[in-house]
């Protein structure tokens, strides 16, 4: 076998309290797509940040083309031909594509004045356009990054790495923000790159796509490597078991839904985003008690704004929201909460918790003002602590004590605090937005179970998720949102991933429109 282009030997990386990488060995051969598969928190990204020079390993060696190399900075990694496309894009939104591409590697014109030399934007723009075209990556050099879609930004990131002479590309969860169809396009591009002699490390937690694209799969768990497989000689079940460390039931167990009366009726709802553009553009749907309505869609198609409008966090521009028969468009978050609505917010650390407060205070964050937690002006610490103890026990929150700061708990336990708080009240409607994002499988299973329990207890559940698998598994009906519009609402039993995926990409919508035009 030829010399591997990258070889990692016994890499360990410690963070306070966490062993993120534990003596990891890894090889990347020239011209292959090597997938790094593992759950959130398995240590994949940490390992790649070590390779990219962002973290310094505590132990272990890195060999590039057989030569031991210490990579102390991204600059060095780039010099060694390693480029990385991070999960959260490393692009400056207020700058143009050209500016972003040459950042750190600027080309100048005119007299050499050191740092004060003038940038040669025109030349770079020409070069990157040519480079992109070579691999079928269309980019617009003079566009500002904040005007681009996530798919376009990803292409810019790939060209950015290539422009810096990357021979090895590390892609961290590249499909997380893409529709299934966009992901297929990406795979074509990756194949073109490999055919041209590039080598690719593909980080993912999605079994199916890894089986589809990779030449080789390395599975990580709890910071260590569990094993290596070839796609042709393995299957989803084996990989899943390796990832999680036990047999995983890939299917969620749930009984038949018993839809009841309408709890939430949304009609022709219009909501603007922060830039005063229409983010939700005339959306209508209903949620009945005893059912789960899943909202599928690629991130950024108005889901965030929709949920914020439903929970009173964002003003509406038109339409109506009837909650238990009452108009709540433009109502305050408190009024909506008091109408028996639970809200599991998309960004749990930003919106759902006060990290500097103890678990006990977070468990009463939106009921603190009511008896028994307050009497008149004065808060009742005794009652708050008592409720906290009960909920910690009931929801299995792993915390040293009720007075521990929530910020010190793990992500899964933080989410449990939110779930405990929201589901400890009498609830008629549960709005759960990306409820399992970034959690480990154990916590995901737990949250799923609780949501189904809520449904079976008669509450309506609105589940917004960009994980298509999650939507498919939990929902009784599926509303697909694309560019601020609900393009269709499907019965979960009679649809499939492909159909939903096409709707998410807006393909079906366009076809429908075309048909309508032809008919009209």
């Amino acid at each position, binding site marked *: 076998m030829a010399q591997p282009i990258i070889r990692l030997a016994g890499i360990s990386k410690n963070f306070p309290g966490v062993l993120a990488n534990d003596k990891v060995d890894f090889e990347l051969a020239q011209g292959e797509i090597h997938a790094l598969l593992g759950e959130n928190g398995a240590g994949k990204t940490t390992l790649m940040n070590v390779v990219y020079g962002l973290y310094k390993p505590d132990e272990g060696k890195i060999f590039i083309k057989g030569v031991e190399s210490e990579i102390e900075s991204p600059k060095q990694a780039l010099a060694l031909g390693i480029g990385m496309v991070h999960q959260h894009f490393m692009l400056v939104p207020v700058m143009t594509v050209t500016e972003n591409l040459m950042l750190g590697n600027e080309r100048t014109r005119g007299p050499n004045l050191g740092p004060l030399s003038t940038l040669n934007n025109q030349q770079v723009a020409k070069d990157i356009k040519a480079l992109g075209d070579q691999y079928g990556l269309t980019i617009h050099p003079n566009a500002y990054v904040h005007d681009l879609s996530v798919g376009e930004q990803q292409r810019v990131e790939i060209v950015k790495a290539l422009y810096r002479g990357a021979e090895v590309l590390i892609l961290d969860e590249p499909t997380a923000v893409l529709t299934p169809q966009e992901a297929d396009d990406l795979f074509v591009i990756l194949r073109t790159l490999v055919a041209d002699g590039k080598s690719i490390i593909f980080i993912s937690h999605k079994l199916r796509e890894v089986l589809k694209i990779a030449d080789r799969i390395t599975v990580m768990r709890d910071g260590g490597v569990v094993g290596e497989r070839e796609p042709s000689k393995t299957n989803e079940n084996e990989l899943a078991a390796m990832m999680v460390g036990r047999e995983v039931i890939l299917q969620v167990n749930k009984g038949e839904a018993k839809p009841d009366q309408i709890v939430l009726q949304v009609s022709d709802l219009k909501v603007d985003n922060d830039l005063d553009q229409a983010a939700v553009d005339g959306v209508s749907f209903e949620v009945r008690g005893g059912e789960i309505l899943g909202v599928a869609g690629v991130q950024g198609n108005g889901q965030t704004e929709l949920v914020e409008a439903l929970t009173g966090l964002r003003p509406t521009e038109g339409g109506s929201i009837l909650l238990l028969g009452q108009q709540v468009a433009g109502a305050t*978050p408190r009024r909506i909460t008091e109408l028996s609505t639970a809200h599991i917010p998309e960004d749990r650390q930003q919106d759902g918790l*006060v*990290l*500097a407060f103890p678990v006990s205070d977070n468990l009463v*964050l939106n009921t603190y003002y009511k008896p028994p937690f307050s009497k008149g002006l004065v*808060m009742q610490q005794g009652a708050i602590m008592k409720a906290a103890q009960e909920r910690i026990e009931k929801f299995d929150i792993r915390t040293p004590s009720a007075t521990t700061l929530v*910020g010190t708990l793990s992500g899964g336990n933080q989410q449990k605090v939110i779930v405990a708080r929201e589901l400890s009240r009498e609830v008629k409607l549960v709005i759960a937005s990306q409820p399992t994002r970034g959690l480990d499988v154990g916590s995901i299973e737990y949250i799923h179970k609780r949501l189904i329990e809520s449904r079976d207890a008669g509450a309506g559940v609105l589940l917004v998720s960009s994980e298509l698998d999650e939507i498919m598994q939990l929902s009784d009906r599926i509303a697909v949102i694309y560019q601020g519009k609900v393009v269709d609402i499907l019965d979960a039993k009679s649809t499939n991933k492909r159909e939903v995926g096409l709707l998410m990409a807006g393909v079906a919508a366009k076809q429908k429109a075309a048909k309508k035009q032809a008919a009209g």
Partner: protein
Amino acid sequence: MNNFFERARKVGSNVNLGQMAVPLLAIITAMLISSLVILISGADPVKAFSALAEGALGSQVAIVETLIKATPFLLVGLGIAVAFRGGLFNIGVEGQLFVGSAITVIIGYSVQLPFFLHLPLALLGGMIGGAIWAGIPGWLKARYGAHEVITTIMFNYMALRVINWAIGTDGPMRAPRTTVPETSAVFESARLPILLADSRLHAGVLIAIAMAFVVYWLLWKTKIGFEIRTVGANPHAARYAGINVPFNTVLTMAISGALAGLAGGIQVLGLAPYNFTTGFNVGLGFDSIAVAVLGAIHPVGIALASLLFGAMDAGARLMQLRTRVPADVITITQGLILAFVAADQIIRGLYRIRVKAAHPEKKISLSETWGGGD
């Protein structure tokens, strides 16, 4: 009463020795560096600081002076602390103090009322003045995202200019037949009673101490306090929890300003010559920020810190008299204390302290909304 002592003990036990070490060492280090400054200026730092100590604690008069000087520090420090806890940096306490004292002095010299009405009314007027002068920047922040650091500083200069005009030649507040810019003295009925015969110790000291308890109770025992602290710790989560964040921002600033205004009122009603002149309590605002941070933004800590700063201010005069070291060295010391308390890693490194630092989530962050809200 029993209940009270029990609570006091609880508060006391929350303050552990390890946490006290850092501020103490910060104070000592700041004094050592100041000694160096004194040495360079050609004086003897030992003599200077012993004169300072004598001036602050050496006699009954000295101790009274320390208490009187500590009073505005305590009140203004509490005001800054309330804002801090609500995630706001009220750097404009000085302007609020001016406005508060101006309104107190107007009420004090322009109406005649019985004592039990006049004094509370004058102080209340000062508090309302301070509350409004801080509340407007609070509203500008809540409604338009204007950062309070610059707006309150601008409000400082505006207050200064308007009041200087008002007590200047032909100004409406100018005392009749005087050659210096000052107002008339307030009537006897508005003055704070003297606690100790033949001394300057006035009842404002007690008001300030009472306020420390009130602020503690408000912040940690009531719904209002819970809301203020939630908004301060995470405004997004506060909105999610159904708290009216804009209203809270205005309220927090108003409470903060009211405390500063009260401090201004007490300075006017408690100390001879019972009037308002130019240069009234200049610089107190910035020093009080150091008091609040040194006191860990907690009423108990702030009470201790204000005693220290009061003692420094009280002793500085004797130091300047005896050793010719300008009293301004105190400001340098106070700046250094603030630096070392805020950058506690320096102190921990210098003295190899192993006690764990505060959880990062508990560190103050005021800079997040600099760009004008979000």
